[in-house]
């Protein structure tokens, strides 16, 4: 037994240490406990095969899929240069999320059953996440959802619900509840007397869910607030002039929006050119990339949430060197600053690596996916954005940053005002495991 375990250096040292205490007989019985029932668990020489699935075609590729995929490629490369995961090289397969749930279900089945990948890290669309995550337990494959936003993914039909919903399915980022609750909290702090709010969100599940949570939260926090206009433009709208005029007519002081990508830039541009943003303040749940993309004219004083604390200047580089390294490495390779999907990709691949290493140290050898799953549940790790923790409901929790746009000399575009960075701790913006986000907000005593 001892000889077999000794194939793993770390366990050998552990065993030797115990034996060194002169408890040789006890060591024989206690070592197997430490090492689990590990029988000659060798670390395979073959590479670890990871499938990274993001939108690589279509309108979601530019804003999400490619920044995410870039970060996967970068991290796989960086890890491989440092010996991979426990000495195994990472073999990353970048695949397209196109074709809807119809194609993605078939693809996931192929990846798990035929290609036998070690894990799937993927999915930007909530529809795809809802379709794929149940397959983790059905097929016995480890699936880490990395970016999709729907708040109900890990929540049960009723509240309170049992956790976890999936044994082998995880989401390594917080859901959209966090962004919209954080926005409501920030508005409560800076504009407590706001009377009129409006919303402009895309007419599909993401936009509907985002507005729903924001409306619940803001009405709870500022009871007198009145919703004066709610707009639902079609996704991939290129002409928002009618919406801008309608918002101008409504007299709203705050305009909530979960627009992303081209839609967000188009709306902001058209809103700016009609002077809408001089009178009303935007509250954008995924607003972090847009001052940079809209450019120097982006107005000051608007609320921008960062989908967590994913901002290239936060956490501050002097206090958290990992963010500095991540931003600089990404900039060096792709000549762009990373945006939040890049951070989310880091979270997925780093969670997998950390969990494998943790599980391996317990079982002595390459862990099974069940063991990796156990290690993932309750895992905490350092990411470029601070600490990420994965709760027992298999959903990650993050702190959430809301900033206010401000022009500075150092950058050719407005940044988030360093004096007014509002960071809400994860427990303030995420429902605890076992209760639905809606019920949690409804239960607040403000």
């Amino acid at each position, binding site marked *: 037994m001892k000889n077999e375990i000794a194939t793993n250096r770390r366990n050998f040292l552990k065993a030797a240490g115990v034996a060194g205490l002169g408890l040789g007989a006890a060591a024989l019985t206690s070592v197997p406990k430490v090492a689990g029932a590990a029988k000659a668990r060798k670390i395979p020489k073959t590479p670890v095969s990871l499938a990274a699935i993001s939108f690589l*075609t279509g*309108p979601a590729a*530019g804003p999400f899929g*490619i920044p995410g995929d870039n970060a996967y490629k970068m991290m796989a490369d960086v890890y491989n240069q440092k010996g991979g995961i426990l000495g195994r090289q990472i073999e990353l397969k970048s695949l397209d999320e196109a074709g809807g749930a119809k194609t993605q279900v078939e693809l996931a089945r192929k990846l798990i059953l035929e290609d036998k990948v070690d894990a799937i890290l993927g999915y930007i669309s909530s529809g795809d996440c809802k379709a794929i995550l149940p397959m983790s337990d059905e097929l016995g494959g480890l699936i880490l959802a990395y970016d999709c936003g729907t708040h109900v993914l890990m929540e049960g039909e009723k509240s309170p619900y049992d956790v976890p919903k999936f044994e082998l399915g995880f989401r390594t980022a917080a859901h959209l509840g966090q962004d919209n609750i954080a926005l409501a909290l920030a508005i409560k702090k800076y504009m407590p007397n706001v009377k009129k709010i409006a919303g402009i969100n895309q*007419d599909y599940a993401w936009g509907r869910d985002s507005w729903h949570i924001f409306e619940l939260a803001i009405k709870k926090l500022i009871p007198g607030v009145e919703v004066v206009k709610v707009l639902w433009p079609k996704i991939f709208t290129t002409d928002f*002039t009618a919406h801008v*005029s309608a918002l101008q007519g409504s007299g709203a002081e705050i305009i909530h929006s979960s627009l992303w*990508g081209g839609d967000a830039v188009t709306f902001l*541009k058209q809103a700016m050119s009609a002077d809408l943003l001089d009178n009303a303040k935007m509250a954008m749940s995924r607003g972090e990339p847009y001052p940079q*993309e809209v450019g120097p004219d982006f107005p000051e004083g608007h609320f921008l949430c960062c989908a967590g604390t994913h901002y290239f200047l936060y956490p501050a580089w002097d206090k958290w060197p990992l963010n500095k390294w991540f931003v600089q490495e990404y900039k060096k390779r792709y000549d762009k600053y990373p945006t939040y999907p890049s951070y989310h990709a880091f979270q997925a691949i780093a969670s997998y690596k950390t969990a494998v290493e943790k599980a391996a140290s317990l079982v002595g050898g390459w862990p099974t996916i069940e063991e990796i799953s156990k290690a993932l549940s309750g895992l905490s790790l350092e990411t470029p954005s601070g600490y990420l923790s994965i709760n027992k409901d298999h959903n990650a929790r993050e702190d959430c940053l809301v900033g206010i746009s401000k022009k500075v000399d150092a950058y050719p575009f407005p940044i988030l005002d360093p004096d007014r960075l509002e960071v809400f701790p994860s427990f303030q913006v995420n429902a605890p495991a076992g209760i639905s986000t809606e019920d949690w907000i409804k239960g607040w005593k403000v």
Partner: protein
Amino acid sequence: MGLIYTLNGLYFAAFLFLTSLGLNIILGVMGILNLAHGSLYAVGGFVAAFLIGLMAGGPIALTIPAAFLAAIAIAAAVGFVLETTLLKHMYSRALEYQLLITFGILMFVEDAIKLVFGGESIYASAPMDGMGAMNIMGHTYPKYYLFVMLMALLAGACIWWLMAKTRLGIMLRAIEMDRDMAHAMGIPMRKLSIFAFALGAGLAGLAGAMVVPTTPAVLGMGMDPLIMAFIVVVVGGLGSLKGALLGSVIVGLTRSFTIAYYAEMEMPLLFLIAVTILVARPQGLFGQS
């Protein structure tokens, strides 16, 4: 606000009209429903966005014509290549082959765009920012929107003049009416087919180029305009310029006022109009039955 809502509606109509113009010509003259029309639109968009980025800081009086003409030229060139290599074999083929070949072209043009320009969005708002805004009865209104409406009218007028007043147009209309008869009359079919397809492609490129100052060029940007153009063609009537113009204006104005007064109905109402017209007038507003 009523005036602004009307202008917004006309602005949207201008894009619809521009986008459907090329589709309509190819459909009318060649009888081919070009599913790759949206991809040619995207080619125009990416070319224009790329050039606007390249000429950043230059005077917009130079940037705009250069970017737009290049977009037209390159989209037309792509159209030329497609016609002379693939589509020329399709005129005598059954409808399913004509449709599927343009579907196949759509797929590889989409990937070709990605190979050439990379997958990331290209931002190119300089022309719109550079033109500034004007005051219309107390409301700030970007001049670029007025410019788009003007261009759409101009393009429409040119096409009308071409089709109605020139010898070329008469020959094109002859092909539209009866392909076999036109051939028998000795009309140079090959040359005219190439011309019509390149013209349609160029117009798609122009529509794509016109849109990128207001919205970034992204992969798959042509898919939505393609569907909207179909609806305009169906509503306006096959191959009818007048129909396309009126159809665009109806759709644009309805959309603008619905958003202002009853936003939930934006999309359903548009489709409702299309379906109503189709049931009441199956050939479209100005189509020949």
